[in-house]
């Protein structure tokens, strides 16, 4: 506490003035009127901006969403510690990726009911219910990530595996063979590792450190199952 000065305003004293010494002289009277208008000068501009999205062209609307999705794709392909996926989550990207993957993994319609690859619905169910289960698991373990943020991250990190599926289909056009299989195996393993690294970069921080492995293991299982579906895909 600052010491009270014995002789205020004495120019000859050698002792220094303590801080805030003059504040004790200030009193706040009860009858100072405090009123007025508090307006945000920028508000009128925001309102103008809101109404203008109704009038903009469809091209602008679609491009804005596509650019947001594309930006998040870039964040997945070059995973850094950033909050973009978490802050502005959206589920368009996961939907596009899941539909693409399911369409490419679809079994041949001439194939039998029993013995072929997964149906479209099976892939869809595995991806979305797998993501929901992992999110629930993460929240039950005490993670502080929201439900849709986690779904968004898990869905976007399927992008490397979708790229692997595209490459596998292209490689399979060259005909079957052991070299063919080794190339596909290598590509799938690399993309699987990329998915795990990308999703862990976003999800691992939301868990307390003594439970991080418990939350990351289901993610590993999820991407492992998707990689196995991609690797065992046979086009005939």
């Amino acid at each position, binding site marked *: 506490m600052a010491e009270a000065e014995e002789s205020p305003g004495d120019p000859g004293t050698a002792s220094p003035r303590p801080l805030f010494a003059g504040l004790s002289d200030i009193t706040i009277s009860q009858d100072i009127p405090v009123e007025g208008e508090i307006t945000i000068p920028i508000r009128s501009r925001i309102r103008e901006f809101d109404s203008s999205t109704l009038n903009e062209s469809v091209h602008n609307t679609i491009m804005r969403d596509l650019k947001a999705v594309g930006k998040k794709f870039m964040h997945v392909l070059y995973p850094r510690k950033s909050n973009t996926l978490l802050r502005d989550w959206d589920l368009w990207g996961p939907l596009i990726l899941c539909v693409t993957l399911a369409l490419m993994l679809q079994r041949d319609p001439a194939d*039998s009911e*029993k013995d*072929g690859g997964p149906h479209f619905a099976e892939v869809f169910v595995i991806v979305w219910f797998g993501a929901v289960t992992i999110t629930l698991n993460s929240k039950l373990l*005490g993670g502080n990530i929201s439900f849709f943020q986690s779904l968004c991250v898990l869905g976007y990190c399927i992008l490397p595996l979708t790229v692997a599926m595209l490459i596998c289909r292209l490689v399979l056009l060259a005909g079957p063979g052991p070299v063919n299989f080794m190339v596909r195996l290598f590509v799938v393993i690399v993309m699987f590792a990329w998915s795990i690294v990308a999703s862990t970069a976003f999800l691992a921080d939301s868990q307390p450190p003594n439970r991080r492995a*418990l939350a990351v293991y289901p993610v590993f299982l999820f991407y492992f*199952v998707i990689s196995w579906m991609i690797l065992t895909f046979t086009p005939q």
Partner: protein
Amino acid sequence: MAAADELTFHEFEEATNLLTETPDAATTSRSDQPTSQGHVAVAVGSGDSYGAEDEVEEESDKAALLQKQQQQPGFWTFNYYQSFFDVDTSQVLDRIKGSLLPRPGHNFVRHYLRNRPDLYGPFWICATLAFVLAVTGNLTLVLAQRRDPSIHYSPQFHKVTVAGISIYCYAWLVPLALWGFLRWRKGVRERVGPYTFLETVCVYGYSLFVFIPMVVLWLIPVPWLQWLFGALALGLSAAGLVFTLWPVVREDTRLVAAVLLSTVVLLHALLAMGCKLYFFQSLPPEHVTPPHQAASLPTNIPLSPTLPRSMAPS
């Protein structure tokens, strides 16, 4: 005669030591207390009913006190389910190790769970086992095709569904039946408290862990080796179950105890055999699967997956 100081809370190490010293001592547990504070009251008596009445009264008083102290959240809240996932990585790994190496004196529920059963282990072990079964089953087909190109390879994705349903049904319905049966017998005997439903689920879930490396080792296409691995894993898993259930069941009549334990082991063996026969069929060299002749699989696969006759052409 139970002395007053023997009715106080003891630590677990003391309890297990006492148990090994006096194997015919009766123990009661507070395992059905929902508070899960980690306290267990161990009353070591000489087995006569005179002391038992005092113990029961004391325990009901303590139960009332504990319930007043801690309100359990309702089952419709998220926090209720969060209490079942209150485990750390080291605890889960510890429990897995405990299920892999069962020891006669160490009861899995008392020693490792310690009144804090979790749902993380059973759920994810079952999921892993289901997917590993499907993947390795498919891999054996790939390996068989490499040895003999006439075998028709297909991804066989339906096996994932079959594996998932059968494993989850086994790991949740059998503990339900066991728990129900033990509670019914508790009404008859009034002495030893059985395990809660979650603890039974935990025991079964963690005991299925040893099947995961067994299934992976079944990739080796040597038949006698496969049967050897199967027998080893089944032995470990069933031993864990039996050692856990023995303290609860030994108070009952010998007939009921023997029938219960043998049923548990038999169901476990049926699961292992069903997995082996359905997912890892040994294909004869001149096999070609005509896809259109595969009949529909039996859809009810609750406890004992039987060999589907539709797979007979293999």
